[in-house]
């Protein structure tokens, strides 16, 4: 097998290395494929499906699908945009996302993805589910109202911190992030310096005593859409 693999994304020829996923090769080439659960330091698991692309006519998660010679990938199409909008819409109505008082607002990847996709309002009915908050830990709190079940904290705690503080429990609408402790987060060995405290894409795992540190207008996604750092590489 040759070291370099050539394929196309939306008709543009991309050169990647053997073993890379579509997402990795696209990132390197300066083509942004929208994603939520993916984080380059973690093992991709294709759970949010925002990065779904059409590979040789079939839908695949770009974060897990390896590249092959001559494959054709469709990414920026009206159908895929609509599919991504639907996922984001569902994530909004299946949680309780109050952006106006969330400390993560302006730096939140879910919100930024909705901005990028031009969503003024979700089209599905709000479910207003009952979710709980764990504020027992002295340095960190968990607000499950904002959790999008991306699994980044689960993976980071297990694979990088080697602690396994978080795990999913329950199924479907009742699925939630649980902590590996007698009762609450304070009973676990979770520390504010852990990688898992830094990976949450939304305001679900928040460090205490930080608050609204960056003024409105200077936050990460205030003026530039999510993904523009990748597109600027082109």
């Amino acid at each position, binding site marked *: 097998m040759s070291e370099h693999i050539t394929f196309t994304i939306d008709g543009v020829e991309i050169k990647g290395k053997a073993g890379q996923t579509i997402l990795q090769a696209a990132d390197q080439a300066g083509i942004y494929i929208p994603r939520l659960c993916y984080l380059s330091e973690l093992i991709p698991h294709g759970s949010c499906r925002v990065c779904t692309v059409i590979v040789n006519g079939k839908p695949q998660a770009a974060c897990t699908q390896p590249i092959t010679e001559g494959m054709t990938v469709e990414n920026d199409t009206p159908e895929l945009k609509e599919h991504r909008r639907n996922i984001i819409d569902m994530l*909004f109505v299946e949680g*309780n996302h*109050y*952006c*106006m*008082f*969330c400390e993560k*607002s*302006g730096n939140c990847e879910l*919100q930024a993805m*909705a*901005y*990028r996709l*031009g*969503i*003024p*309002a*979700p089209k599905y*009915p*709000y479910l*207003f*589910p*009952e979710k709980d908050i764990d504020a027992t830990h002295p340095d960190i709190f968990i607000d499950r109202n904002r959790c999008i079940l991306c699994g980044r904290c689960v993976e980071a705690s297990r694979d990088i911190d080697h602690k396994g503080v978080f795990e999913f429990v329950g199924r479907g609408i009742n699925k939630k992030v649980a902590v590996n402790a007698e009762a609450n987060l304070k009973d676990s060995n979770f520390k504010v310096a852990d990688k898992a405290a830094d990976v949450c894409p939304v305001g679900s795992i928040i460090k205490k005593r930080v608050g609204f540190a960056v003024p*409105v207008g200077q936050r990460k996604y*205030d*003026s530039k*859409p999510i993904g523009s750092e990748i597109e600027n590489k082109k």
Partner: protein
Amino acid sequence: MSKPKIATASLAGCFGCHMSILDIDERILKLIELVDFDKSPIDDIKEFTGRCAVGLIEGGCANEENVRVLQDFRKHCDILISVGDCAIMGGIPAMRNNIPLKECLDEAYLNGPTVHNPENITPNDKEIPLCLDRVYPCHEVVKIDYHLPGCPPSADTIWQALVALLTNKPLELPYELIKYD
């Protein structure tokens, strides 16, 4: 030719979106050249005087009066716009949606730490509109044509949307003007 009319209302909201409308500053003089204000707290006209081109709705539906006002707006306005997060998703008032209504009222009038209510009465005068079981975003009650997100949407967002609609241009908000906070 008479100018098109605009109507505005605040349902279960904080009037912040109306403040944002006023925040268009001196452009309000240009707006007055383009439109007349009909039913609105801005001019204190209580009832519709005729058909309106655009209705701006702030706040969600928390009680039966909110629903009536919203339905009245739908009836009288060609284009109805949800302005702000309360109108779009219920906003802060929707935080009661996870608590049974009786518990909310008991906390507000009977059990709250600062409540002084020796008669132990929950207000129930028929003048007071009945609370709904939960707070509903406007588009779950009537058809809404456009949404302007934000808490509140910036004056620029409102201005740009109004000018686009009044000059028959497509309402396309640039990235910087779509904000949920």
